[in-house]
């Protein structure tokens, strides 16, 4: 089974590691993410103003590209890796499902594209892993159990809010934890897992991001997490950069590495991961201290 895949701008720039690892993980699990031949920015945020349709053009074009590729691959699913893109594409798609008149209007405007029929299902990579593959099958494919690693799965807010687009429990999500358990890792529970990392405030109000990240990371550290795992490139960026500042200011006494779920999965699912692990000394050291992998 292959899926049309929408990367989004971040996955091609600051989030490259996530894409590289996720494409590899998909192959190891027996499916392929096929990048849409052309795509535009998702729109960055979902515009809640009900009568401004121009801001939905970007996402709509991507949904049309998915519709075209879906005919070839015989699927109506579109997979994203970035939480922000997932949120925008899914909300735009849902808006069309609930408002056929708006879909008609936008199709009239997009007169040099085929009509969008409203049938695409926007899925996050996590959903594919959990629903289409399943933790059991992932467990079978594990080459290196992460049994000596304590992980803190951090969702952020874009995957689970608003409720209409959430694919997991909004207050105590379990999907990422289940997948990490399947890899053999010890999953800790952090009540801050669905709290916002500060998101785009990083540009205009860095202080707000520092506050958010301090709350998230200090609990994670008290609970003894070796690594924070996230599916979101913006969370990964904010949590990593804010920790540097927090550490310099003495607000936290150590920095916890923040990596993508896909990276950890690649470490666990790859046959000979020694070369790849070299990039993750902090994990290798932790595991060596406790008797290796």
């Amino acid at each position: 089974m292959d899926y049309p895949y929408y990367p989004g701008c971040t996955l091609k720039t600051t989030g490259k590691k996530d894409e590289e690892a996720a494409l590899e993980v998909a192959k190891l699990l027996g499916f392929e993410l096929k990048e849409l031949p052309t795509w535009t920015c998702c729109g960055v945020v979902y515009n809640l103003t009900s009568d401004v349709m121009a801001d939905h053009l970007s996402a709509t074009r991507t949904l049309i590209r998915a519709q075209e590729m879906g005919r070839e691959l015989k699927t109506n699913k579109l997979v994203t890796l970035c939480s922000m893109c997932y949120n925008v594409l899914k909300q735009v798609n849902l808006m069309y499902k609930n408002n056929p008149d708006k879909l008609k209007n936008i199709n009239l405007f997009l007169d040099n594209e085929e009509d969008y029929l409203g049938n695409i299902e926007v899925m996050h990579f996590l959903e594919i892993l959990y629903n289409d593959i399943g933790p059991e099958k992932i467990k079978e494919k594990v080459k290196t159990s992460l049994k000596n690693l304590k992980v803190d799965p951090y969702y952020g807010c874009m995957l689970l809010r608003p409720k209409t687009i959430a694919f997991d429990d909004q207050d105590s999500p379990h999907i990422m934890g289940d997948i990490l358990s399947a890899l053999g890792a010890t999953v800790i529970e952090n009540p801050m897992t669905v709290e916002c990392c500060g998101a785009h405030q990083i540009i205009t109000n860095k202080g707000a991001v520092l506050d958010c990240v301090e709350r998230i990371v200090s609990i994670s550290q008290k609970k003894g997490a070796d690594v924070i795992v996230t599916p979101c490139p913006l969370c990964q960026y904010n949590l990593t950069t804010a920790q540097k500042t927090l550490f310099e200011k003495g607000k936290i006494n150590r920095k916890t590495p923040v990596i993508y779920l896909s990276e950890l999965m690649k470490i666990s699912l790859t046959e000979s991961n020694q070369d790849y692990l070299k990039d993750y000394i902090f994990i290798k050291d932790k595991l060596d201290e406790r008797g290796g992998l």
Partner: protein
Amino acid sequence: MAEKNQIPLVSVFIMGKEYKIPSGLTLMKAMEYAGYRYTRGAGCRAGFCGACATIYRLKNDYKLKSALACQTTVADGMYLVQLPFTPANKQKYDMEKLNIAHNALLKEYPEIARCISCNSCTKVCPQELKVMDYVQASLRGDIEKAATLSFDCVQCGLCAFRCPAEITQYHVGQLARRLYGKFVAPKAIHTEDAVNKVNSGAPRAEISKLKSMSPAEIKDLYKKRPIE
């Protein structure tokens, strides 16, 4: 009174005034036929320079169309105006100080982040380039794609006129091509070799020999030149 074989005339409205123009003329020649004289904005008259960007509408068609005046022939019921210049911000940059980091284009032209993918630029482009796609490629730092997709741009500026996000697409594309040429594309070693050869003075003897020849001798030499 119509003569035999007379070229049929069509109605063309230039800045609102109707003129009867022989069909088959280009928009540029039609303007001249109607009495306009170009002192600027005529450009190369061959579709390469982009100086004669024109917008027009056809009777009973809601769409605003565009063309290069030197490359398009008149049609009956055409309402047109030529836009010989585009006021557009153009960054001054020092190529030696630039790089090809993923935000290299975004740094010089941050307004590309305002693109809403409306595709107005692509629709208006008289060169039929995928303008929106190269703006989107620029946004995500894909310099090679931006350079390739914008390669045939003639810098007419129509895209910048139509953009609701006020992006100056053609300047962004130009920077992408410059970055691609300087940092990505393979170096043209043969050109470098040829320049070195000239600088070394090797061809000087041959040139002095030519200089000393009479016109008849040169003509003879030209006729006997090896032809591939």
